[in-house]
């Protein structure tokens, strides 16, 4: 599995983590390049279905990151998000979606170093877990396989 480059999707809020990631770049800190960042106004806006869609489209790991508690640009978006993720992680576990593949974090605009660390450690973790086959078999990979075979509905 050494040549496996995991695909990681990051859902970050505009005000803290996105600015933090920007700082990582401007400070010329190195971090894994396999992460695709998607910017949101707020973690409160990150619908749980978006995370499932990331897996659906072939992500092996996910990062969700926003402002520290009490720092939300909209006052309470991240508090709402926190509740949602508590429930969400439990449901993932119960349905067998591997929650180790999802990193949740608070990264402020000043924490360029922390962002690099989050991305790097998530990448390492996902490399250890390998490609997320169980999910992709019934989504993207499974679809493409059937498509190429041209099977008439099993």
């Amino acid at each position: 599995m050494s040549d496996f480059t995991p695909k990681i999707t990051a859902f970050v809020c505009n005000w803290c983590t996105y600015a933090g990631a920007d700082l990582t770049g401007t400070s010329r800190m190195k971090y894994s390049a396999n992460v695709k960042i998607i910017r949101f106004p707020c973690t409160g806006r990150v619908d749980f279905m978006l995370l499932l869609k990331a897996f659906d489209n072939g992500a092996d790991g996910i990062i969700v990151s926003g402002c520290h508690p009490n720092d939300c640009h909209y006052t309470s978006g991240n508090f709402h998000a926190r509740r949602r993720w508590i429930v969400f992680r439990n449901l993932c576990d119960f349905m067998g979606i591997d929650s180790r593949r999802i990193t949740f974090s608070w990264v402020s605009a000043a924490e360029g170093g922390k962002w690099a660390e989050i991305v790097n450690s998530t990448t390492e973790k996902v490399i250890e877990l390998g490609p997320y086959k169980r999910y992709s078999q019934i989504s993207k990979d499974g679809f493409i396989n059937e498509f190429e075979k041209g099977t008439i509905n099993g």
Partner: protein
Amino acid sequence: MSMEIKSIQKDSLDKLFNSLKSRGNLIYAPVKVKNEVQFDFVEKFEQITDDFIQTTQSVKNSVFPKIETLFKFVKTGKEVKMLDMDMSLIPEIVIWGIHPCDVWGFDSLRAIFTWDTHDMFFEKRMDKLTIIGMSCAKADDYCFCTSVNLGPGSTKGSDVLLTKTGNGDYIAELVSDKGKALATSMPDVFVQAVQSKKEDFLVVVEKRFDSESLIPKMQKKETFDSPFWVTNSLRCLGCGACAYVCPTCACFDIQDEGYGARNIRFRCWDSCGLKQFTIHTSGHNPREVQSQRWRQRLMHKFAYMPERNKVTGCVGCGKCSRACPVDMNIAEQLQEIDQKM
């Protein structure tokens, strides 16, 4: 078509199975799964059971699958290339041990799918089907086949209809040319008929109403406008359970799915019971409330299909009533209409 009658001895039924299998057919037969019996593709004769009244789902999946891919399309730059499905991949299927009501369900489907445009997927799948029916020795009070011109020993639609006799041997009625050809090709399985009468081995299903008298009543305007529909559907939840288990319900939706360049267009089951079924883009919904959707379901089967397709859209299997979470009993309601209207 004159019907030939043969018999099959109880210990040669597996021979029939094995020869069909060795000729490359897939065999779709009732099997026991946990506490239920359902149709599935079987490998071994021993997996099959005949100890059931009805399966929850019908066998329409075999000719009208939950998902039928109609074509594929590939996008490259601005170009879209369409690719036809390879129809030669559609397998030969033998449906084994299916009850007469379910068998006749194929006829309703045929009436719809070949009404004006002939649906090539449906027709191809139908062509590849061999139907070995099994008449009913058991029924429950949801069954009402005799009210819609069928019965526990009806041969309509089967290629071969088997009836189990008292000593375990089967009476085999060769209904269609396909059935006759099958029997001719297996002379050691289909042997000389015995002297038993099949009626002796059939369950008695009480007639609840008469579709001949019901249909004109359903077609009257007063019936359509009657408050009956609201009163009798207040508890209906508006799900798709009744339509999805029904052997004759044929409504579908057409959708696209794909990842990047590779896409498919397919049809999948839909139901007139769901409020989304008729909603327009504007948001207007001509069937605004559930009573109109429930009325549509019964009207389609007992007023519109008889008029347009010359068939009744219901075979009296009672699957919808068994599947309904809130005990909407179709036979009971039809009986009431027949008596009151």
